[in-house]
């Protein structure tokens, strides 16, 4: 981040080096007990422990979370944008798959 302004002559860990050498991690934060972890962003870190601490500092400094997961971005297999037509569009006209025809008893609570 300091690449434009830094006047340091002895900084070897330049931001660009860090970005090249440190793998990318995806960060998931659980905002409160009982809710699921939600993806909230990504960051560069040298290993899992480092990534957890970085995530704590970057993504939970405004009390956003009670739990953090990090996973290396390279470990995630993602669907391809080009597959959109065959992956997702066939479900577009199957409204009967939404359970909107049932009344949910109050006792069930949050679903």
């Amino acid at each position: 981040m300091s690449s434009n302004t830094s006047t340091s002559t002895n900084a070897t860990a330049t931001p660009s080096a860090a970005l090249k050498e440190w793998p990318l991690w995806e960060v998931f934060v659980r905002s409160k007990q009982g809710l699921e972890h939600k993806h909230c962003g990504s960051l560069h870190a040298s290993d899992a422990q480092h990534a957890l601490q970085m995530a704590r500092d970057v993504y939970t400094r405004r009390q956003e979370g009670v739990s953090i997961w990090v996973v290396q971005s390279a470990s995630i297999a993602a669907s391809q944008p080009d597959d959109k037509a065959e992956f997702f569009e066939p479900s577009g006209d199957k409204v009967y798959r939404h359970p909107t025809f049932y009344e949910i008893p109050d006792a069930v609570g949050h679903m």
Partner: protein
Amino acid sequence: MTSALPTDYLLHLADNALVLGQRNAEWCGHGPALEEDIALSNNSLDLIGQARLLYQAAAAQIGGGASEDSLAYFRDVPDFKNYTLLELPHNAPLASTSASDRDFATTVVRNFLFSAWMVLVWDRLQQCEHPELAAIAAKSVKEVRYHLRHSRDWLLRLGDGTTESQARVQAAVNHLMPYTQEFWSHSVYETQAAQVTGLDTLSLRIDWDQIVAAALSEATLTRPAAGGFVTTGKQGLHSEHLGFLLAEMQSLTRAHPEAVW
């Protein structure tokens, strides 16, 4: 409240937090990576938050219009009672005083040495008989535990890292370790405070030594021999660096007293 704490003791704790908070804030916008930049700013904001609470407690004892702002911004070098360790610039030993020449290893080692100490101090003070100080300690110990974890983690990575990172962090350890002797040097106000808090700082030395020895060993670093000059910042006798730090920190408030936004 059982009995009064010496105001100088509250100022000592507050000045420690404020001066190191100000120093670490010099990394804001200049961190080695975006994430670390934010981490160091978080660290500073924790420390400045601790300083505010402690200055408020001190101001209440002083009375007569004293406030957290008057204590932070309108006292001069001889009034400050922070450890000399905390006012040193971030550059490596024997470097100039230029604030732009920051050495991350120096930052990491100082934060480690001080956090390891304050974890012990706050942990004891949160059980003390002075309710306000105990409450501040209970809040601060959680923050400082994270500062210790963060700085210790970097100490290990740099120490057990490349040849260059190891050499630099070892140089920082050699440079800063002698300043830690001030943690145990005598002061009148600490002795008086101990009668209220029950905290004898000398008794924490063994625990601190163990934390430091374990981390240095794990980081494949060597602990330099103790000894040499014992600094006197907490008595108000500082290095030449504190004046520059205060000048920068206080200039706005002194140019525009009582300015708000």
